[in-house]
């Protein structure tokens, strides 16, 4: 496929977990100066490939070759010594250490035998600016949102001057502005001859950024070819083995009486005077950059953060939830953006995660959980969300990222709320499942559920929402009706900050 000898190559790699074979004879070549995009459905085995390269898990068969010689890395540090940097799908951060320490962990700049803090902070700040992320590098990482944590992971890998860069869904948690910057950086690295493996569920990223594309299905390679020879439709067909359902199938639903009424909501440090109404059957999109205040609004509505000011009415009655349990009693559900920190109890089986929100309801006298009902409910939703798993008792931690997300969705759909707040619901979800989730959400709206959709994925918001509110630095700056939405204008409204004006001459919208 390319004349150059690959820098890193997988040959006939297989892996099984118990009885389940998750990779079968996978070949993959990474050449210097080329981006290799790896695609496939949730659970296809992409992250398993990454973990085998990084030495986190061991392949059962096959070989990994670096410059033609077989190697086995003993974990991230060893891989790094061989010039291989890895961005994992779920960044492993040290929550109590600062941003800078996380970036330089194990290789802090030193002066006279002691850590040179000044240099470390300065370099970390600079590295983050390359991604156009302005983060206080002295903050402990636990104070940051998931996008910022992802950025740290990316920046850490970029700063290693690696010959091979592996990135597992680096774009699923950061917003379009950072994605643009990441792609510029990737282009530079490419020119410098770095071999890059890139995993994404976005077809335009796979075909736009990738020089070569490999698609996995159920752990087997279905195709490996130059990106130029694939159309988006072919790509999707190779991934899911069938024609995809339509994305964003928002059915026209009659929008009923306002269910949720928010007035002058302020708090969480920077959210100011946010007001809106949400009708039954309506899908309201909240759009904005990372840090615009979307998740903060969601968390104030759900009783996690207490607002400083403002009013909230549900079905005409004043509501002031001070805790998630109160919010849930008022008929709210919030699917949080961080599936590992806020969403799932990873060591629990799928069943226990899915039913955690309704366990009380599934319990009879004395609080005894009705296991029969619990199992039935979990099974129903696992099937509905098409979770790829060995059964409802599989430990959630061992699911692929996208399948964990589906469990999280099940968990918040099961309570059948009146108002459903979705914070990045399709993050890391493959095209096929995404269409399915869009169909489910649209159906729920048609049945009268009021839905708030927060997403970094502009086409998703535009496709699904009846109305879009654009937020910038904690304020509502624009509203678009469904028929009058213009992606360019929406992105501009979201990004038009003074900081941007000062540092970026022109703003590109994603294609």
């Amino acid at each position, binding site marked *: 496929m390319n004349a150059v000898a690959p820098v890193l190559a997988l040959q006939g790699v297989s892996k099984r977990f118990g009885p389940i074979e998750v990779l079968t004879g996978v070949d993959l070549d990474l050449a210097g100066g080329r981006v290799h995009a790896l695609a496939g459905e949730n659970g296809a085995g992409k*992250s398993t490939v990454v*973990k085998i390269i*990084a030495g*986190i*898990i061991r392949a059962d068969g096959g070989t990994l070759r670096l410059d033609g010689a077989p190697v086995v890395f003993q974990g991230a540090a060893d891989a790094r010594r061989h010039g291989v940097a890895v961005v*994992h*799908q*779920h960044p*492993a951060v040290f929550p109590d250490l600062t941003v800078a320490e996380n970036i330089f962990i194990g290789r802090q700049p030193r002066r006279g035998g002691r850590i040179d803090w000044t240099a470390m902070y300065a370099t970390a700040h600079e590295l983050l600016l390359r991604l156009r992320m302005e983060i206080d590098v002295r903050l402990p990482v636990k104070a940051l949102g998931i996008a910022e944590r992802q950025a740290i992971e990316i920046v850490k890998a970029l700063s290693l001057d690696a010959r091979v860069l592996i990135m*597992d869904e680096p774009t699923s948690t950061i917003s379009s502005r950072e994605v643009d910057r990441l792609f510029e950086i990737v282009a530079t690295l490419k020119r410098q001859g770095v071999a890059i493996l890139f995993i994404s569920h976005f077809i335009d990223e796979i075909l736009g950024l990738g020089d070569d594309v490999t698609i996995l299905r159920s752990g087997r390679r279905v195709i490996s070819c130059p990106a130029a020879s694939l159309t988006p439709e072919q790509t999707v067909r190779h991934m899911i083995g069938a024609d995809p359902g339509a994305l964003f199938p928002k059915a026209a639903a009659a929008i009923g009486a306002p269910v949720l009424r928010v007035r002058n909501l302020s708090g969480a440090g920077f959210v100011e005077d946010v007001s809106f109404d949400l009708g039954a059957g309506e899908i309201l999109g909240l759009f904005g950059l990372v840090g615009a205040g979307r998740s903060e609004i969601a968390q104030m509505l759900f009783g*996690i953060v207490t607002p400083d000011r403002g009013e909230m009415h549900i079905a005409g009655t004043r509501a002031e939830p001070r*805790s*998630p*349990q109160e*919010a*849930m009693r008022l008929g709210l559900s*919030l699917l*949080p953006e961080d599936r*590992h*920190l*806020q*969403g*799932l*109890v*990873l*060591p*629990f*089986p799928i069943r*226990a995660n899915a039913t*955690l*929100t309704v*366990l*009380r309801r*599934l*319990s009879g006298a*004395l*609080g*005894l*959980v009705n296991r029969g009902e619990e199992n039935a409910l979990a099974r129903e939703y696992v099937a509905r969300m098409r979770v790829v798993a060995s059964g409802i008792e599989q430990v959630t*931690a*061992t699911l692929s*990222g996208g399948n964990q997300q589906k469990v999280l969705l099940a*968990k918040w759909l099961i309570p059948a709320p009146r108002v459903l707040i979705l914070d990045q619901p399709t993050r890391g979800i493959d095209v096929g499942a995404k269409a399915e989730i869009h169909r489910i959400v649209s159906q729920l709206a048609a049945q009268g559920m009021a839905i708030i959709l927060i997403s970094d994925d502009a086409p998703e918001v535009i496709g699904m929402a009846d109305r879009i509110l654009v937020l910038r630095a904690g304020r509502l700056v624009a509203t678009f009706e469904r028929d009058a939405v213009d992606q360019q204008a929406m992105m501009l409204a979201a990004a038009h900050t003074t900081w941007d004006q000062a540092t970026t001459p022109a703003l590109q919208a994603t294609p």
Partner: protein
Amino acid sequence: MGVLARWEAFLVFVLAATLALGALASPYFLTASNLSIAVAGVMPTAIVALPMTLVIVCGEIDISVGSIVGLCAASLAVCREQGLGIEVSMLASLAVGMLAGALNGAIVAYVGLPSLVVTIGTLALYRGIAQIILEERGVTGFPDWYQEIGFGTVPGTPIPWSALIFVAFFLCFAVFLHATHRGRALFAIGNNREAARFSGIDVRRAILGVFVASGGLCAVAAVVLTSYLASARSDTATGLELPVITAVVLGGVSIFGGSGTLGGVLIAVLVLAFVQNALGLAGVTPEAQQIVTGCVLVLTLVLFGAARALRTAALFRRVRAG
């Protein structure tokens, strides 16, 4: 779950080995009356281990249990000195225990201080109060039926009354922890407190609850222990936290919270009881007994814990790498 099941199987094996070795050490060991004595001796530890399991599953710890038992015993004694009936005195001591637990729980859950620090503080506080109210006095003169609780057996059987009390509480706690939604919530809290909160679990109330349970069962242990010793003193159960926490951890409950079963704790308690008893029969002095018990514990934990730690580390790495 798999690991835990194997851990419990391992404990059953250790228990069987203990019984076998005990039988070898002394022909008297496997007699009904000896086993009955061994079991009765460990019941206060076993009773307190029940709520301690809940506390540890939540990712917290209660170091003050020994002192709460002491405070409850002292309260009981003072009530008796004031001429109150034994029933009323027992109720008063229960109230004191629950109050002491509630104070621990309120500080941990609502002020947000680490339970290790808080309960080390109240360990000194509660023992101090016990000593002030009772000083060095030992109160005796309990009714006959009360004396029976600690040492007596169900007529016609070798079963100690205290074991019956324990079994009743064990069943309640086991059902609560493993079969109710509140029990499930404790596991969720111990594994991922933030996700538990986002799921609508009242984390603070749950934590307050387990500490109140801890205080309450300390009062029950105080009643049993006072009866066992036939005297209520302010230094009752000094150092009880150590065997209790040892039993819970040996029972396979993760000290970091989020996993474990009460079945495992039950077997661990029995292992502790029989090891100590067998050593006593073999003529090992109490000091040397402690050394042997300590060695057995450390060895078991190292032997099996190493395997488990490796497994956990592997899972953890996988979890973190996604």
